[in-house]
């Protein structure tokens, strides 16, 4: 009841103001009447009585104001009137308003879009219950050059059984499968998981169930589908359960479907490809469970017990992993300690997030900082525009002060105007972000963490609200100080009219322009450095020739191609047919594309001439793959067809590897094998028959890969076709596809694309951030130009009389021009010098992102100031033109 009454009163005061005011009027009149009546009764004349009554009020208006204050909605009323006033004044200066809103909308929009990307990639909580307790555990063999590796099955099983830190542990790896039995055969992303992984993540299926430990251990053919995949393939999750699908031509029964939101592994994970469509039991064989120091393929995730910290878990795991080495067979341990100095296993436990953030963090934070700087430059623009407006309104403010407006009231007025501007800018900015985000994502690099989850969400709205509220504080700061410090009385007397603006105010405005120039300098420098680095990377020689070559991925399902002969015959026939296509120069197949991911293996030499083992990339080839890639042969010979038959174990190695294993002599004829040189290593010895030129692992990486090419093993069933053609390779794509279908119509073909496209895509992350920074730097340059042009124009307008006097006293136009340009260069010059100093210090932060370019690249550090000086010169032209055209008579007459 009471609440209702109070609300009713407030509501009435707000929306039925005239009635409330009338009531107040009536009440006071009633009092006056009664006072007067009483006075008349005690003998006063009516006039006298009236006067006495009025005196007792001690000021009618003051009384009314105080009664209004008592209503408790004063602040709201004031805000509303401030708002109305702000909108009215802003509408009176449309050019100013539109400029400011456009600048703010742009800045807020870009900030919002970039924030959405960075926030999802780096900060947003993962969609798992109590995700902060999820950790990623890795092991590593630093002595062999592998500080961080996924787990091998026996090591995982050991720590899973013996740890006391984790409530649950799980392991998984992604693997691609041929899916058939539902529509067209195609390749799907799959993940092999331990049954416990679903419990670790804490997500249950929407329909059906997940597999059990039993089913995992007994290699039962069961599969759980992702929600999205079940929807696409079967319509509804319910329809999927109980169905049978063929994975690599082995039948699996669908037992459950995960929720649509379940996307695992996280996009951008360091050892695994993105979210899987099918989840099948990991089903380690007995060999898998025993083989030590190999098969480091399974990523481990664990859930911390409630009272255990990451540090404690890390310490426990480091201890546990030592015990694994102690349990090795003595012979193996001995051999390791002999061959590998300081051999040891290590383990690291880190927050799950680090599994996929990795190298992406720094470039993303730099992007966020860059858009933040653009926003600051924009704010400085708006601040100066507000400032010059404020000066022209000083008389108005003075008048309002004289009429009784408090200082705080004026400050509120200024802030409200700022808020109205930034709110409209923010609203348009959000629309801009809605439009720009999909565009940005189209160009985003494939390995951006959680790329698939990025969207405009509530966190982004909070972010927009925060910057929309914070921005006016920035750009109103100067004007506010001015409002507080202004000598209103002087202004009103008229003395302030032609007097130069205060020193202080001039300083703040100039400082804003100087800051803009130095920040623009910084952004331009970073954009310049990234551009040069990208150009260098594009020009870099990858070590092979990518033109006129098409690639396609084919993977033979194990159940249909079991024996070596079946695999060999398929590939031989296929390559033969493709070679026969007119226009094909060479055709081959290779297990890993030059820019693709590779397996890191260690090799050991037969005669331990070099002590250490080497970490190499082991690549299997068929046909004329090396020739088709145009790898330059340096010594010896390439692999030949007869190397693929029988037991001739030949390898071709890359130049740097050759130098590494035979620093002085000739590497040809040396024998080496996969794995450390320990008892139980059953790998055959391989003879080096040829040396080819080095190949880069990434265009932006200067260290060449150590490569070893050998004829295929029988377990290698996934290969990339490499077809070199004489013309446009895409013209032959259909022909190649046709040949594959001729031989096995069920074989799906994945990723058929020209090799130069793959090469180009390998730079997508660099290209993405470089283009974005170029855009931001361009925007910064534009805003800074606007800033200095605005200030100069304003200044010239302020000094019209001065110029008139100067001209009247005989100054010629050249002197005036010198005045203006000197002012312009003083401002921009200071900004450039400051920006130069800031950039020298700041570019070190991006040195890891640069390829073949020094963070102090002289070209960039020369070009940027030149651009800025040119721009400043251009900005000064218009004000200069106006100053020169000053007519002394008119100028003086306005005095």
């Amino acid at each position, binding site marked *: 009841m*009471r609440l209702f009454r109070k609300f009713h009163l407030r509501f009435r005061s707000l929306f039925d103001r005239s009635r409330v005011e009338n009531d107040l009027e009536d009440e006071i009149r009633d009092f006056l009447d009664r006072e007067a009546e009483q006075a008349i009764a005690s003998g006063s004349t009516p006039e006298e009585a009236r006067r006495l009554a009025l005196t007792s009020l001690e000021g009618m208006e003051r*009384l009314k104001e105080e009664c209004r204050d008592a209503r408790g909605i004063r602040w709201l009323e004031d805000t509303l009137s401030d708002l109305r006033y702000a909108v009215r004044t802003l509408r009176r200066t449309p050019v100013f308003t539109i400029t400011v809103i456009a600048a703010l909308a742009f800045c807020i929009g870009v900030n919002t879009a970039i924030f959405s990307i960075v926030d999802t990639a780096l900060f947003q909580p993962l969609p798992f219950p109590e995700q902060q307790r999820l950790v990623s555990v890795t092991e590593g063999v630093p002595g062999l050059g592998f500080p961080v590796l996924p787990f091998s099955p026996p090591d995982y099983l050991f720590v899973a059984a013996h740890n006391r830190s984790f409530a649950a542990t799980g392991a998984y790896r992604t693997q691609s499968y041929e899916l058939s039995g539902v529509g067209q055969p195609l390749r799907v992303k799959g993940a092999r998981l331990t049954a416990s992984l679903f419990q670790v993540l804490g997500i249950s299926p929407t329909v059906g169930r997940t597999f059990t430990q039993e089913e995992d251990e007994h290699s039962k053919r069961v599969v759980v589908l992702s929600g999205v995949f079940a929807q696409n393939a079967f319509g509804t999750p319910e329809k999927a359960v109980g169905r049978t699908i063929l994975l690599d031509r082995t039948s699996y029964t669908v037992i459950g479907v995960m929720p649509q939101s379940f996307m695992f592994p996280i996009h951008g994970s360091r050892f695994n490809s993105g979210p899987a469509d099918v989840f099948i039991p990991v089903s380690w064989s007995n060999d898998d469970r025993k083989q030590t120091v190999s098969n480091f393929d399974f990523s481990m995730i664990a859930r911390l017990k409630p009272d255990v910290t990451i540090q404690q878990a890390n310490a426990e795991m480091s201890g546990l992993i030592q015990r694994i080495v102690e349990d090795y067979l003595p012979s193996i341990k001995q051999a390791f300690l002999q061959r590998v100095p300081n051999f040891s296993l290590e383990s690291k436990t880190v927050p799950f997030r680090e599994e996929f953030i990795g190298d992406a963090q720094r470039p993303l934070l730099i992007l966020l900082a860059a858009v933040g700087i653009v926003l600051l430059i924009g704010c400085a623009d708006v601040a100066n525009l507000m400032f010059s407006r404020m000066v022209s309104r000083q008389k108005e403010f003075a008048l309002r002060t004289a009429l009784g407006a408090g200082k705080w009231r004026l400050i509120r007025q200024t802030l409200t105007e700022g808020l109205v501007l930034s709110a409209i800018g923010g609203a348009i900015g959000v629309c801009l972000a809605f439009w720009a985000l999909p565009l940005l994502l189209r160009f985003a690099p494939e390995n951006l963490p959680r790329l698939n989850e990025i969207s405009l969400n509530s966190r982004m709205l909070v972010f927009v609200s925060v910057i929309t509220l914070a921005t006016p504080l920035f750009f109103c700061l100067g004007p506010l100080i001015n409002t507080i410090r202004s000598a209103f009385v002087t202004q009103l007397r008229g003395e302030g009219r032609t007097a130069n603006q205060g020193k202080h105010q001039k300083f703040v405005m100039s400082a804003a322009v100087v800051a803009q120039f130095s920040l623009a300098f910084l952004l331009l420098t970073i954009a310049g450095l990234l551009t040069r680095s990208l150009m260098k990377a594009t020009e870099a020689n990858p070590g092979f020739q990518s033109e006129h070559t098409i690639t396609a991925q084919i993977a033979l399902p194990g159940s249909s191609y079991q024996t070596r002969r079946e695999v060999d015959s398929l590939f031989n026939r296929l390559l033969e047919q493709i070679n026969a296509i007119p226009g094909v120069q060479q055709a081959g197949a290779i297990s890993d594309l030059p820019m693709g991911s590779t397996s890191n293996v260690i090799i050991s030499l037969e005669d331990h001439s070099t002590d250490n083992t080497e970490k190499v990339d082991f690549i299997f080839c068929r046909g004329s793959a090396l020739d088709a890639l145009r790898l330059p042969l340096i010594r010896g010979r390439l692999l030949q067809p007869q190397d693929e038959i029988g037991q001739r174990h030949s390898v071709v190695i890359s130049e740097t590897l050759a130098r590494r294993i035979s620093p002085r002599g000739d590497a040809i004829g040396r024998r080496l094998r996969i794995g450390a040189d320990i008892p139980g290593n059953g790998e055959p010895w391989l003879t080096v028959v040829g040396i080819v030129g080095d190949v880069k692992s990434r265009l932006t990486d200067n260290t060449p890969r150590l490569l070893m090419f050998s004829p295929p093993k029988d377990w290698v069933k996934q290969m990339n076709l490499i077809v070199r053609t004489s013309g446009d390779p895409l013209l032959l794509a259909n022909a190649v596809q046709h040949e594959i279908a001729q031989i096995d119509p069920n074989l799906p073909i994945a990723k058929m694309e020209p090799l130069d496209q793959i090469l180009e895509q390998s730079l997508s992350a660099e290209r993405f951030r470089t283009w974005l920074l170029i855009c931001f730097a361009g925007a910064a340059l534009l805003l800074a130009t606007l800033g200095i042009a605005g200030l100069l124009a304003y200044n010239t307008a302020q000094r019209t009389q001065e110029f008139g006097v100067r001209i009247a006293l005989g100054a010629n136009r050249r002197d005036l021009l010198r005045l203006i340009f000197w002012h312009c260069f003083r401002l921009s010059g200071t900004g450039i010098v400051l920006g130069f100093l800031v950039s020298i210090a700041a570019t070190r932060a991006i040195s890891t992102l640069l390829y073949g370019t020094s963070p102090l690249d002289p070209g960039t550090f020369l070009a940027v100031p030149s651009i800025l000086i040119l721009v400043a010169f251009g900005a000064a032209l218009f004000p200069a033109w106006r100053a020169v055209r000053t007519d002394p008579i008119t100028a003086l007459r306005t005095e």
Partner: protein
Amino acid sequence: MKPTDLVQGTLDLLILRILALESMHGWALSHRLKQMSKDVLQVGPGSLYPALHKLEQSGWITAEWLVSDTKRRVKFYSLTKEGRKQLASQTEDWKRLSGAISAIVLPT
């Protein structure tokens, strides 16, 4: 004595106390105050009306418009239930406060 000389919040207490006896309009209230305090307390409309409006907003008193015998619209204030509670608690406070002050200022 001017209202500014009153102890902070005392005017509210006085108004609540008087309205507890009977509902009345502002002018009558100011006269009743003067009369009951034997002309010591003279609260002018400049203090009285804002105080009344504040009490009304707080929900301790409520107002209704009546038409008097002289056909004038008159705003009558009366105490609400919360107002009565408030009066009781403020009276307790006042007793404690005045007792404490008396004990210091008027030692026996």
